Each structure stands twice: as structure tokens, then as C-alpha cells.
């Protein structure tokens, strides 16, 4: 029953406000996290075996009537579902303690679940218009979640995010409509089939440009990144973790990849455009991150830069490049989720996000400092953590494909990444303890637990990279190399 990925979070979200009337905190915590835990366990155990016989398409019957409730799952989809479920569960656990002072927990979990359902639905859908619908579901929930604090900065960031995001959706929908008008179909298979027989290079190029702009905005690739460094830091920390760890990847990278690989087919020109856009993102955002004083803004710029790496690997289109890109997607989802959660712990303990004011927090918050170090080193690509292997794969793939310039850019930018993460660690956690933070305490249990779990996963990705690559990444990359 892969339809559960969509139905269960929605159903729980629908009853949560009623539950919230009975019990303000405990029951929403329990229900929200149980739902996400169930989906994670189901992904790791049940769904994997379903795929043994190849891609899966499920149709539902409704009281004996045949209706078209079609969901499909293949290696790529399953891999993305795993990433979504992992990070959202960690975020859910973290929220138990963190969201205390925001109030209205039932409403918060309902929005979080709707956003997760939107992402799951996007991953499972087989048709262009459904991609648009679930994009909007996740987006509408995320506008409210970014503004959840209801302070000036949150509202401003959310409004800017909404404006740009709506333009992105419009561009995507226009491209979908033109494809629909040309081929008469909306499902991936029908559109791909139709485009094969049509001499429509020019129109496909226009549609590709629209998709690139729309999904590029959603994925915050430079030059479409302006909203992200506002929106992600302003959100509550767990939401920053979901947005940076998951939403930009699912509604940006995943949808873009699906459409370009499974419908249009990756042409050399498109591949070049994708790779160079990505390379510009990697470098520009890394330099911008260097100059940040706000810990969450630095992390947000780092997200733009790392999404660049992911698109660089995927845009290359070789099997190795795809594997590297997808592996980096998973590594970055976990590590950046972890880092944003840690920034939340620090902010809650000290009340500031300014790196200059911090210092020496490692002595007061050893768990936060330790897990943060793990996450930072993974994103920066230090062996033996996951991020190292995925960046290595991307760089090897670039060299193999004869893209020497891009490979050099990727290597140099990873040095830059290491640099700004060391600045972050040094300013926030090491050095002399600032007198102001003498009485700072370690984060509460659930917050610490969520970060420890994510840190262990990040370390596990590094040590077990061969088996992760074989069981999860390879099937996903195969789907993309095969086309459709």
C-alpha cells in the first residue's frame, strides 16, 4: 500500500486539530511522530521488498468503482522517500522540545504532516499536473511554517518566499500546459511517447527553459536563490532543517530530474546548461557563505552551494555522476538537517544567532558541539564521512567525462566549504567561553536525541558507504540512466 505515504499523514493531519482540543501537547507530539516513524519503518522494510519485481504501479478501487488513483514507485522514488522519512522523523522528534514556546503544537504538526504528504505525493505521482499540485501543497504548508513565529522577520521572509515561489509555479504550469496541448497527455509516459514522434525541438527548448526557471527557483540555484537565505534562516529551526534538507531537493531537484531524464531525455546541451548553472551556484554561494555572521544564514548559503553539487552530479548524466549526485543529496539532507537543528539548539540556549557573540559553547553544550562538528565535516567533505565519498564520486565522474574545468571548480569550492565550516565551528563552539554563556545548558532530551541520531546516520553513511550505495543509490541511478 504505497498510497499510505500520502493518505496516512493527511488523515492524521486532519484529526490533529481536534486532538489538540483534548490534549495540547502530548497527543500531538505522539501522533505526529508515530506517523513519521511508521512511514520510516515501512520505507526501510516493507517498501523495499515491494520493489523486488521492478517498478511498481498501484491502482486503487473505490467501492468497486474503477477510479484512477494511480501511484508509482521505482528505485529513484523509494530513495527519495527514504530521505524524506529520515529527516522528517528527526525533525519531528526535535520539535517535541523546540516548538514548546511557539504554541499551537497540534497546528504545527498538522502543517508539518501536510508538507510531508505533499513531498511524498510529489514523489509518487506519475503525471505532470500532479507534480504541480503536490508542489503547491508542500509550498502552501511551508509558507505558513516559515512565518510560524509571526515576528517581523519571519513574515517578511515568508512573503518574499511566497512571491517568488508563485512565479516559479506559474512557469512550471505554463510549460505543463504547452506539453499537454502538444501531446494531449499528462502522464510521464504519454508525454514522452508523444514528444518522440513530434518534430518539436524549439517548443521543447522553451519548455525546458520554463522548467529550469521554475524548478531552479524552487531548488534555489544561483541566480534564482535570493529568497532562500531569507526564508530558511527565519523559519523555526526544525522547519529550516526540513526546507533545506528536503523541500528544495524534492520540489526542485527531484522534479527537475524526473522531467529532464524521464520525459525530455538529457541532451548534451541541456547537460551543459545544468552543470554550469550548478557550478556557478557552488562557487558564488560558497563565497557568500564565507561572509555571513548569522549562523543560520551561513548554513542557508551553504545549502545553495551544496544543491549546486547535487545538480552538478546529476546534470553530468553519467552513471557515476548520477550516483554521486544522489548520494550527495542524501548526505546533504542528513547533515544539513543536523546542522540546522543544532543551530536551533544554540539559538534556544543563547538567544542569538550571531556567530560573533558565541564562542566556547562546546564546554557548555558538548552534544550539540560534537554532532555539529560531524555534520560540518560531512558537508565539507572530510573523510571518512558521507559527504567525502559523494563529492569524490562527483569529481571522479567529472574527470572521467572529460569535464576537467568543472572538476577543478568542484575541488576548489570544497576547500572553500571546509574553510567556512571551520570558521563556524571555531566561532560558535571552540575558543574561549564567552562570560555571557556561563549558565548555558545542554539542549533538552529530545532535541539532543534527534541530533545524535542524525549524527550517527551521517557517520554511518560514511563508514557503510559501499552498502548504502549498492542498496539505495544504485537502483535510483539505474532508473535515471535507463530513461523511462
Amino acid at each position, binding site marked *: 500500500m504505497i498510497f499510505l505515504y500520502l493518505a496516512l499523514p493527511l488523515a492524521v493531519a486532519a484529526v490533529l486539530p481536534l486532538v489538540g482540543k483534548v490534549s495540547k501537547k502530548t497527543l500531538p507530539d505522539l501522533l505526529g511522530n508515530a506517523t513519521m516513524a511508521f512511514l520510516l519503518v515501512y520505507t526501510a522494510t516493507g517498501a523495499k521488498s515491494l520493489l523486488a519485481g521492478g517498478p511498481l504501479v498501484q491502482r486503487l478501487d473505490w467501492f468497486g468503482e474503477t477510479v484512477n488513483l494511480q501511484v508509482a514507485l521505482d528505485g529513484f522514488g523509494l530513495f527519495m522517500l527514504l530521505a524524506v522519512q529520515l529527516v522528517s522523523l528527526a525533525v519531528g522528534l526535535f520539535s517535541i522540545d523546540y516548538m514548546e514556546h511557539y504554541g499551537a503544537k497540534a497546528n504545527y504538526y498538522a502543517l508539518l504532516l501536510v508538507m510531508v504528504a505533499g513531498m511524498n505525493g510529489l514523489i509518487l505521482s506519475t503525471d505532470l499536473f500532479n507534480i504541480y499540485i503536490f508542489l503547491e501543497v508542500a509550498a502552501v504548508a511551508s509558507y505558513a511554517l516559515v512565518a510560524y513565529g509571526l515576528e*517581523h522577520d519571519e*513574515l517578511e521572509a515568508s*512573503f518574499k518566499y*511566497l512571491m517568488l515561489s508563485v512565479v516559479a509555479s*506559474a512557469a512550471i504550469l505554463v510549460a505543463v*500546459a504547452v506539453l*499537454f496541448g502538444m501531446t494531449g497527455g499528462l502522464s510521464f509516459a504519454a508525454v514522452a511517447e508523444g514528444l518522440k514522434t513530434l518534430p518539436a525541438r524549439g517548443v521543447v527548448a522553451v519548455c525546458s527553459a520554463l522548467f529550469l526557471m521554475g524548478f531552479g527557483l524552487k531548488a534555489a540555484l544561483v541566480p534564482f536563490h535570493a529568497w532562500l537565505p531569507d526564508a530558511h534562516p527565519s523559519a523555526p529551526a526544525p522547519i529550516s532543517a526540513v526546507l533545506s534538507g528536503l523541500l528544495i531537493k524534492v520540489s526542485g531537484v527531484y522534479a527537475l530530474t524526473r522531467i529532464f531524464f524521464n520525459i525530455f531525455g538529457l541532451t548534451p546541451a541541456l547537460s551543459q546548461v545544468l552543470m554550469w548553472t550548478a557550478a556557478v551556484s557552488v562557487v558564488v554561494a560558497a563565497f557568500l557563505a564565507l561572509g555571513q555572521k548569522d549562523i543560520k544564514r551561513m548554513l542557508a548559503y551553504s545549502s545553495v552551494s551544496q544543491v549546486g553539487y547535487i545538480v552538478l552530479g546529476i546534470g553530468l548524466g553519467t552513471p557515476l555522476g548520477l550516483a554521486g549526485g544522489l548520494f550527495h543529496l542524501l548526505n546533504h539532507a542528513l547533515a544539513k538537517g543536523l546542522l540546522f537543528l543544532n543551530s536551533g539548539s544554540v539559538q534556544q540556549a543563547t538567544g542569538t544567532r550571531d556567530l560573533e557573540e558565541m564562542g566556547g559553547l562546546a564546554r557548555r553544550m558538548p552534544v550539540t558541539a560534537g554532532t555539529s562538528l560531524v555534520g560540518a565535516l560531512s558537508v565539507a567533505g572530510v573523510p571518512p564521512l558521507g559527504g567525502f565519498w559523494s563529492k569524490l564520486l562527483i569529481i571522479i565522474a567529472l574527470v572521467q567525462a572529460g569535464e576537467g574545468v568543472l572538476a577543478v571548480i568542484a575541488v576548489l569550492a570544497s576547500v572553500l566549504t571546509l574553510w567556512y565550516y571551520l570558521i563556524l565551528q571555531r566561532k560558535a563552539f571552540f575558543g574561549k567561553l564567552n562570560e555571557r554563556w556561563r549558565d548555558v545548558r545542554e539542549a533538552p532530551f529530545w532535541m539532543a536525541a534527534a541530533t545524535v541520531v542524525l549524527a550517527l546516520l551521517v557517520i554511518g553513511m560514511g563508514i557503510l558507504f559501499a552498502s548504502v550505495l549498492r542498496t539505495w543509490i544504485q537502483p535510483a541511478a539505474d532508473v535515471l540512466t535507463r530513461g523511462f
Partner: protein
Amino acid sequence: MTDAWIVSIAFAAALVVVGLYGLLTMRNLIKLFIGIEVVAKGVSLILLSAGWARGNVLVAQSLVVTFIVIEVALVATALALIINITRKTKSLDVRKLARLKG
């Protein structure tokens, strides 16, 4: 049929561009959102005329209905945001929203 589709696309493109013009130049938050509504009109016109041109208006019609439902959810969220913003800044001016650096 194709000619009629081209005419519709031409007018829809005009709507989208007019909306984007408003989005880029206006200072009033509500005006900005009216710009987005105009873009949305253009998009729904493209969507329906695509189906119309193919003689497949039924599917296009159901897409437009779904699109309108999504639009309502979006408008409700955006207007709630705008009301919250004016409570904080005491103004509808988008220039008051410049604390974050982008």
C-alpha cells in the same frame, strides 16, 4: 483549431506579462498580490485553451477546476500573511519589508 490556440496563448502571455509588470513595480502588498492573480488568470487561460485546441476540453476543464481550488488556498494564505504584516509594520508598503538582506 491551432490558430485559435495561438490567439489564446498570445492573450494569455499578455496577461502573464502584465501581472509580472505589476509584481516588479508595485509597492503596495495587496497590489503585488493582485499582480499574481493576473498571472494566475493567464495561466488558467493557457491551460484550458490547450485542452480546447485538442478537442479534449473535459480534461482541461478538470485541471482548471483543480487549479482554482489551489488558487483559493494560496490566496487565503497570502492574504493572512499580508494582514499579519500590516499589523507588525503598520503599513502596506513593501519597502518597509527590507530588514532581511536577500
